[in-house]
């Protein structure tokens, strides 16, 4: 009798304990768009990476402060006697979803696949010469020269299972240009905390916790239902009506209302993305201006006036509803090379700006067209519209050309814009990434987004030197020098850093990730 009672009691205890631990928690997670593909090396795109991070894992990862963290690699360092070689120690006891063991072979295979011809990740591995397995849990990545920042490039390069890839004929990245489709687009075998249960592209994907995942603490979320909802209003309505639990892309204007609505809360945090205006440089007159004999943007006084008339605080307060970090330098604070001093910006001064414009020879201002995307960044069109108003106050009459990003990008890339708005995320958290694409003269390899065709051979040399400089102090000094010139020449006119907002039911906690790649493993329930 006694023993039976005890048995029942203990059974009860066990069952409640089990209920506490294995209580099934489903999270319905909505955002604006779906992952493009599940093939991890086929697209270098934030939404795709974010989704794949739940299924596949990378060697290194970033925490919510942007610091590098061990994931499938436990240690990483430059080889003692050779600055061109990075050594990665791999985690032991890791299994793929199909039960296969994770070894150095898989890493070699995956890194080779990621830098192969058909991969969209290859640019991040451009300096890699070869990848070699030293033993089952050590990999050496040999570079063409010293590459002190290489670990920053691999936080989105996922590791696939070599055996599975060979068995399913996905050794090559899908060559969709040749009209091929590929098993890995819809099927997965990763080491990540969740396994893919079902997928309907653009509609709904279901992920379930992977029981044999290596992490010691099991995630509170045992099932993820991922729901892309394109329309902003519909997405917020879905949260308010209780059809979803977490909304990742929250329009800034809805933040205040949502946080004051009972049952919901909003987490905000800075994103690693700077929004800026750029100009066309060079002597050639602007195509869209009434000034036909010179280029006003080539005059530093004009640029200073445009800097002075930009009221960043007003944009923050009204257009961004307080959800932005105004900036004086075209780099987010997360990035190596950022200083508070660089980031300072002047109070707007319309009178002084008018004087400068008159001094520059344009007392009546001039006309120009501003190209802005209208569906890419947070309130991008509204930011541009606001700046058009501010420029109007000093006589610069701006025509606003607002286009969907699919039409905006080609104009930008073909250098057909006189004056434009663009945003720049810095996944490597280092200034070199900004200089390479935005400041370096436009060539096949560099300056892809140097839309205004700014050139400065001296800067180009310095920028190139950053890639191989191993003395970090010296390197940082060069970065500071480059920023000084960029600021003096007013190459870019920074507006603000974006702030991310995630809205959720109030029993859920999920912190904002600076690269907008939150993991559902970080979700906690009250």
């Amino acid at each position, binding site marked *: 009798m006694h023993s039976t009672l005890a048995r029942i009691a203990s059974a009860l205890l066990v069952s409640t304990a089990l209920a506490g631990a294995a209580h099934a928690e489903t999270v319905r997670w909505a955002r604006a768009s779906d992952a493009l593909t599940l093939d991890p090396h086929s697209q270098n795109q934030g939404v795709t990476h974010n989704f794949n991070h739940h299924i596949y894992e990378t060697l290194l990862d970033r925490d919510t402060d942007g610091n590098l963290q061990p994931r499938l690699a436990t240690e990483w360092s430059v080889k003692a006697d050779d600055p061109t070689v990075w050594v990665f120690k791999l985690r032991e006891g890791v299994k793929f979803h199909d039960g296969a063991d994770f070894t150095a072979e898989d890493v070699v295979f995956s890194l080779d696949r990621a830098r192969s011809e058909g991969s969209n990740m290859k640019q991040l591995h451009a300096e890699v010469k070869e990848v070699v397995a030293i033993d089952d849990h050590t990999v050496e990545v040999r570079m063409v020269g010293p590459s002190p920042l290489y670990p920053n490039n691999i936080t989105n390069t996922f590791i696939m299972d070599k055996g599975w890839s060979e068995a399913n004929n996905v050794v090559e990245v899908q060559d969709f240009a040749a009209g091929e489709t590929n098993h890995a687009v819809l099927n997965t075998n990763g080491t990540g905390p969740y396994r893919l249960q079902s997928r309907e*592209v653009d509609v709904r994907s279901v992920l379930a916790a992977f029981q044999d995942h290596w992490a010691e603490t099991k995630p509170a979320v045992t099932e993820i239902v991922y729901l*892309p909802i*394109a329309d902003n209003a519909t997405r917020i309505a*879905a949260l308010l009506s209780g*059809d979803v639990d977490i909304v990742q892309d929250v329009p800034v204007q809805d933040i205040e209302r949502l946080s004051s609505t009972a049952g919901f809360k909003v987490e905000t945090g800075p994103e690693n993305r700077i929004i800026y205006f750029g100009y066309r440089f060079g002597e050639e007159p602007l195509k869209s201006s009434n000034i036909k004999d010179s280029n006003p943007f080539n005059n530093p006084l004009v640029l200073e006036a445009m800097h002075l008339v930009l009221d960043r605080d007003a944009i923050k307060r009204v257009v961004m509803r307080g959800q932005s970090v105004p900036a004086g330098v075209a780099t987010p604070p997360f990035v190596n090379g950022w200083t508070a001093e660089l980031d300072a910006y002047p109070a707007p001064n319309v009178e002084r700006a008018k004087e400068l414009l008159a001094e520059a020879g344009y007392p009546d201002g001039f006309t120009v067209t501003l190209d802005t995307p209208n569906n890419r960044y947070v309130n991008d069109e509204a930011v541009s519209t606001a700046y058009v108003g501010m420029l109007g106050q000093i006589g610069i009459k701006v025509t606003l050309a607002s286009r969907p990003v699919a039409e905006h990008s080609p104009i930008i890339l073909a250098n057909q814009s006189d004056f434009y708005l663009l945003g*720049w995320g810095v996944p490597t958290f280092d200034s070199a990434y900004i200089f390479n694409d935005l400041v370096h003269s436009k060539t096949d390899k560099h300056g892809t987004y140097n839309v205004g065709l700014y050139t400065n051979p001296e800067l180009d040399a310095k920028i190139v030197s950053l890639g191989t400089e191993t003395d970090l102090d010296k390197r940082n000094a060069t970065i500071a020098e480059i920023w000084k010139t960029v600021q003096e020449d007013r190459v870019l006119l920074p507006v603000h850093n974006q702030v991310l907002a995630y809205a959720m039911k109030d029993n859920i906690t999920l912190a904002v990730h600076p690269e907008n790649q939150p993991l559902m493993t970080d979700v906690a329930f009250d």
Partner: protein
Amino acid sequence: MLTFILRRLLQSIVVMLVVAFVAFLIFRFVGDPVSSMLGQDSTMADHEQLRERLGLNDPFYLQFFRFVANALQGEFGISYRLQQPVTQLILERLPATIELAFASATIALVFGIVLGIYTALRPRSLETAVVMTVSLVGVSLPTFLIGIGLIYVFAVELKMLPSFGRGEVVNLGWWRTGLLTQSGLRSLILPAITLSLFQLTLIMRLVRAEMLEVLRTDYIRFARARGLSKRAINFGHALRNTLVPVITIAGLQLGSVIAFAIITETVFQWPGVGSLFVNSVQVVDVPVMAAYLVFVALVFVVINLIVDILYFLVDPRLRDGAKSGR
């Protein structure tokens, strides 16, 4: 008979080719797929290389020829955005659009005919004035606003109906239906109403006009004079004569409902071909956009063809016309 159908078929093929050509022409201008396919880490060399591989540097006529040749085999290539075969993507999403289109066509037809008859039989009543005016409000508002408004009222405030999507679906072979589950049916209500409003107004007005006209014809007057009951006249004779043109127009409109669904599907995140099209436009997914347009053209060409042939069979005058070579 055969010549007539053959000529019609020939004309349909020409129409399809023209649509394909126009579709193709346009997509060269809506933007550059390459810049949305390659991320911000890409170089100009990468862009050039991908453009070359996709054949975007080839002369226009060559690209068009390739497109038509492939399309004839039902092959529309791989979606730039989702990297899956376009034909498969469209077939997967077709059931959702067709179910939505039929649901809204049914709503439009039933309410349109009932209200049309009612307003025709009582042309001077207050109710008629109200119905006629309110139905105009429906077409005076942009579809997206009606959709958002319905979501706001019925999903957010009243929490009666789902705010988006298709609910639970059941697979019947390759056909994925939402009509067999409760959540699927509930999800269908708001988008179907949104999509039906325009056609409803159209059909109601058509029925009313036809009915008014029929009621004035001599034989209805004779019927009245003969002392037939009002009910027998209205529903036995007048309605039957009204319905023929109405059904024809409604049939023709079905194709247009499918195409109209673009906006409704976007607002309700309805997983049909329309929202696939809008998502594709945003990233210049040319293969999907072209396939969608050809598909819409095909739907309407087929419907038109069927209607024409039916007319031909029903109306002897047309047959004579065909013989005399008109």
